[in-house]
């Protein structure tokens, strides 16, 4: 049903065309005084309320980074929780300026929904988790033929699952649920042999299992899920602001600029560091974007570099403890690579 709806909505959005997209987003944001940022309604590590009721998480911090770049204030964000179907219309209709909601970058979304992805801030992929005490002999997803698999309905996960089993000539028995909690409960109760969702979701699932040590994640990753922030099509200036905010965070990690050492880095002799922090005498790094020259300084001061944000929300410094993996810097064998800021 969700696919059909997305189709209808896509058609409706196309019919309305790009006319809805204002080419003045940056000015609109500046005059409104805050970035309206669409986030998940609640996804562990990416966007969820903390004890004080503030939005916390990897995606929420990206919203703050963009706000810091524009205003110098990471709290100048209006968070708008959106669900899977309304996220695209919210962006299209101008209800939000920026969609930072673990959204997979796909061809159809990029072309028919009137939005543009500004980069990839998290490389995810779909994996399987099994109970190793119940199925001690299984150590590969290719051995799952005939298994009952718990999966959430209406997601690309469900389609990837069908593709994978068909491609490998295996039978399976889908056990489909609507929500994360129901799916978790069914898996915990042993109603299915395996659980499949994005790898980041499997880490969140482990936190709620009674005996997490009994469960293992199989090594196969069966799909590519590049998640990234998206903006409306047709406003290149705002697109650039969002895109380069992400690059600046990655570049800062590469150069070793962190929240803690920012003050000393401002006096660094390294020309590259001086350049991205806007410390050169005739600095113009903000000009082309329509921002102040210290926009990178503001991002680092307010949220930190990419690695710090990752670590704090989903990495080793959080209960999820997700390994960097594909999201390590390219210099460490990962895929995170920022275009040069000069």
């Amino acid at each position, binding site marked *: 049903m969700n696919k059909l709806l997305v189709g209808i909505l896509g058609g*409706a959005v196309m019919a309305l065309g790009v*006319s809805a997209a204002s080419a003045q987003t940056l000015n*609109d944001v500046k005059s409104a005084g805050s970035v309206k940022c669409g986030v998940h309604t609640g996804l562990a590590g990416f966007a969820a309320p903390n004890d004080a*009721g503030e939005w916390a998480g990897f995606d929420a911090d990206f919203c703050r980074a963009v706000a810091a770049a524009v205003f110098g204030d990471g709290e100048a964000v*209006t*968070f708008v929780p959106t669900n899977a179907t*309304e996220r695209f219309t919210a962006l299209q209709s101008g*209800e939000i300026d920026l969609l930072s909601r673990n959204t997979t970058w796909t061809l159809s979304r990029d072309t028919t929904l009137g939005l543009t992805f500004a980069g990839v801030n998290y490389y995810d992929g779909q994996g399987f988790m099994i109970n190793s005490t119940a199925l001690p002999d299984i150590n590969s997803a290719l051995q799952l033929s005939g298994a009952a698999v718990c999966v959430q309905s209406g997601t690309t996960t469900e389609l990837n699952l069908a593709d994978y089993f068909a491609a490998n000539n295996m039978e399976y028995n889908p056990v489909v649920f609507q929500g994360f909690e129901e799916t978790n409960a069914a898996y915990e109760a042993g109603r299915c042999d395996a659980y499949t969702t994005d790898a980041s979701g499997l880490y969140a699932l482990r936190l709620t299992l009674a005996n997490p040590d009994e469960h293992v994640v199989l090594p196969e990753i069966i799909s590519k899920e590049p998640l990234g922030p998206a903006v409306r099509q047709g406003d290149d200036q705002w697109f650039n602001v969002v895109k380069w905010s992400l690059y600046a965070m990655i570049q800062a990690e590469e150069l070793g600029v962190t929240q803690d050492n920012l003050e000393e880095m401002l006096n660094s002799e390294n020309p590259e560091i001086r350049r991205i922090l806007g410390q050169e005498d005739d600095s113009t790094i903000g000009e082309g974007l329509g921002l102040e020259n210290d926009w990178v300084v503001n991002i680092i001061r307010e949220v930190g570099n990419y690695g710090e944000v990752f670590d704090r929300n989903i990495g080793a410094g959080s*209960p999820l403890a997700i390994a960097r993996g594909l999201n390590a810097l390219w210099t460490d064998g990962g895929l995170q690579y920022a275009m040069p800021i000069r």
Partner: protein
Amino acid sequence: MQEHDLSYVRMEMINAQTAPERDRGVVRWLRTNLFATPIDTVLTLLAILLLAYTLPNFLRWAFVDSVWTGANREVCATVSQGGIQPDGWSGACWAFVNAKFAQFMYGRYPVFERWRVDYTAIAFVVLLVPLLIPRIPFKAINAALFFLVFPIAAYFLLVGGHFGLRYVPTSLWGGLLVTMVLSFVAIVISLPMGILLALGRRSKLPVIKMISVIIIETVRGVPLVSVLFMASVMLPLFLPAGMTFDRFLRALVGLSIFASAYMAEVVRGGLQAIPKGQYEGASSLGLGYWQSMRLIVLPQALKLVIPGIVNTFIGLFKDTSLVYIIGMFDLLGIVRQNFADASWASPQTPMSGLIFAGFVFWMFCFGMSRYSIFMERRLDTGHKK
């Protein structure tokens, strides 16, 4: 009288004797309520067995082994789950509810502005309680304050933006605040609207009748979920760019219209139960339509359908949870949303949060239901068989 010696007639009554042991006190209550027939006895024993089987475990989980305070998930997780409790431990994680309590009540309402919500709540209780107790006088002033002045004052206090109060957009509201505001407004609007629609449907004027029937049947024929969904996903596409309706307002309008349609049918049931003679009697007294409705028909009809009205109110109170569809978080929504907070995720968190939310909902619904029973008894003036 003295000259007749009626010595065989007792001159005073024998003192009343206490009933036999088996017909009084606890024994009698047990005999009539629990062990009246063999089937009752079997059912009672089965129920006791069931309670004995489940209750101790539940009480142990909820009160003995539970955790009341803590900073994060570690207090609610066993060692193998990455926490501090011994392996095999299972207990309620009230620490989660404790840490999130303010959020469950106010949502993301700014901390320094929460006194405004508190004052609104105090005014609500102070005005509502005397209204509910029949003995307290000045009902007319009280009702005017509660139904006219209070909503306007509450609007300015909660939303702000005037009189030096900071503007608090409804997107920051949440928790019990949203549940209460939505259900209060929907209840206050739906009763008069429902009465008008019910009268309209029974009207002899064809146009009014048709309009009422169309409204009622259309609204009842569409699920609330789909209306909220349409309002949040489709509506923005048909409006000019940048123009958005407040989500909270969408929910408020949707819920009120829905409740009105259901209320109309409940009230119509009451109107149909009033014998024709009542209408004719009113006419023969020379009363006009509105007078006869107000003085004769409606007081009897509404009294008959109190259970139905309260049933609709209770349903409405619980339906407010559906606003999660348009990205608003009522009490249940915000509890579930907080399950996604990784620093509190543990096997015990969801159950503890849901039991808390269920308990709060139960308190309100049970309160409404008890008050309706009290009102029914009080107004029961002659129809009892």
